[in-house]
């Protein structure tokens, strides 16, 4: 999946000479946590987070309601250079950037110009789509030997039942690296016939376990 498929293209930005007070207002009114700072050509020259802005704001214990600090230009507190990504980068790479650099937002640029933004929330939304939990489905977990060709064999069982698959994930089987767990979300309220088929084919179904008397 490419960055351009999940990025937001309407980006709220600030020019470097605007005040910290304006930044504070924008963050608050739009319920966002990051503001890219762009020059007159829409080139990203910095970024501020809500924490940067709060650190630069006076303490809530100050008596003075309209302190001078808030009138300082935003360029004095912005972070630069900025980590950016390209619209054709992979979403997985953005996840790595967030994890390794411990940041939660990257502007997306093409030829240095700002074209979009991705935050950790967009990232999590994408992850939810990948797990398939957002559409009506039942989940089945199958333990299989970790060897080439096993996935199509398992999937064939679902195909023969004509049950539509909304997502497939493959997890390591922690107790024994010789095995993997295939997690399939299928669009049916009655997974029992499919589970029976899987068992008949010799696969171990970890979940659902048979309900009722045979716990």
């Amino acid at each position, binding site marked *: 999946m490419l960055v351009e498929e999940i990025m937001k293209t309407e980006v709220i930005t600030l020019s470097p000479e605007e005040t910290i007070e304006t930044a504070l207002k924008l963050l608050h009114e739009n319920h966002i946590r990051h503001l890219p700072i762009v020059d007159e050509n829409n080139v990203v020259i910095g970024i501020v987070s809500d924490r940067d802005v709060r650190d630069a704001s006076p303490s809530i214990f100050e008596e003075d309601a309209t302190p001078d600090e808030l009138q300082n230009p935003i360029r004095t507190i912005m972070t630069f250079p900025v980590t950016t990504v390209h619209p054709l980068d992979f979403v997985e790479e953005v996840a790595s950037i967030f994890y390794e650099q411990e940041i939660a937002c990257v502007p997306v640029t093409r030829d240095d110009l700002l074209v979009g933004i991705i935050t950790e929330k967009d990232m999590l939304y994408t992850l939810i789509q990948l797990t398939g939990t*957002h559409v009506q489905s039942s*989940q089945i977990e199958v333990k299989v030997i970790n060897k080439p060709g096993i996935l199509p064999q398992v999937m064939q069982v679902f195909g023969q039942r004509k049950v539509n698959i909304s997502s497939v994930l493959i997890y390591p089987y922690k107790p024994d690296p010789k095995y993997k767990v295939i997690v399939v979300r299928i669009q049916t*309220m009655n997974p029992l016939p499919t589970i029976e088929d899987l068992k008949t084919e010799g696969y171990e179904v970890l979940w659902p376990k048979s309900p009722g008397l045979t716990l």
Partner: protein
Amino acid sequence: MAKEPRVDSMSCHSGFVFTDDFTSYRFRDDHPFNQMRVVLTKELLEASSALRQDHFITPRHATEEELSLAHSRTYIQAVKQAGEGLLSEEDGMEFGIGTEDTPMFKGMHEASSLLVGSTLSAIEAVMENQVKHALNLGGGLHHGFERKASGFCIYNDGAVGIKYLRKKYNCKVLYVDTDAHHGDGVQWAFYDDPNVCTFSIHETGRYLFPGTGNVNERGLKEGYGYSFNLPIDAFTEDESFLQVYETALKEIVHYFKPDVIVTQNGADAHFLDPLTHLCSTMKIYERIPALAHELAHQYCGGKWIALGGGGYDIWRVVPRAWAQIWKVMSDGTPFQGPLPKDWLKKWEKESPVPLPENWHDPEDAYNPIPRKKEITEKNEKLLEKSLQLITNQKKYNSL
């Protein structure tokens, strides 16, 4: 608070919606959704001398106009075509028709609109004061969407019925769903409506269909705060189920103050149900209708419409569970002791499994659940989260 006296032993004039044609809603011989359950329940009640001729309400079909309160016209047309064998497999996919869960069958539009009509008949009988409460075990098909069939449901009689209540009687409706699956179709139909409050208790969607019904699904826009969910852990037993359910329901009713209560009484949270992983016994199926009955009298002048729903052990579980709704609704106390011999004698030959002999399940019906303590604790936390908005409001009001 009590506007009316205690209802524990109160006889209420109630209506039982029934027709043999309910069984025409049948996808396939080996499909788990089987309306034979309603016939078995009705005969169990008759054999127990709890159901008389003057209790019956004969249902009508819902009109297309009425169906369109909750369904798109294109979808209704597609269902009609499918029932006449005129819809191709490809064209059906878009509407969820022709899948393993909801295959096409001859006359599916008529069979489905009868189930919706029977819910409308129940609603009319209550709202026109012909009866105090009404029970339609043919309804409760809560997975039907505006333009999509799913989870064994074609038309959503609960959603159509509540739209009808809103339109014709302009009342505030509380919808309570105790099916083991999340009542998604009804929840989404009223997600932004502050005059319809939905509350669903169900097995967590981590594994189970449809996967939604999380505690943070609270409604949208004006409807925010009018959608409640309790996605309890797999293998939850009676005690924990009733503890969280009873607390939540009482709080929600008090907070919302409905004019009428509609309950969906799926009977698939029982330990014998083949499709789910909850571990309740007949105990919850006595308490659930008793609570609805009590609260309907306390808050709604008795206005309570109960519907059926899921329930896939149609021999050992559903008839007993559903018969208790009627018993509690019509005379305030549940059945006890042995099941009527005549009923057992008639059906034991048909049943593929030995029939239970008593209204209650034996104490040691299933093996002890090893994680009981953990499950109970998780469900308690869940209850807190689910009621967060009500708790906040109470704190705020007491300042």
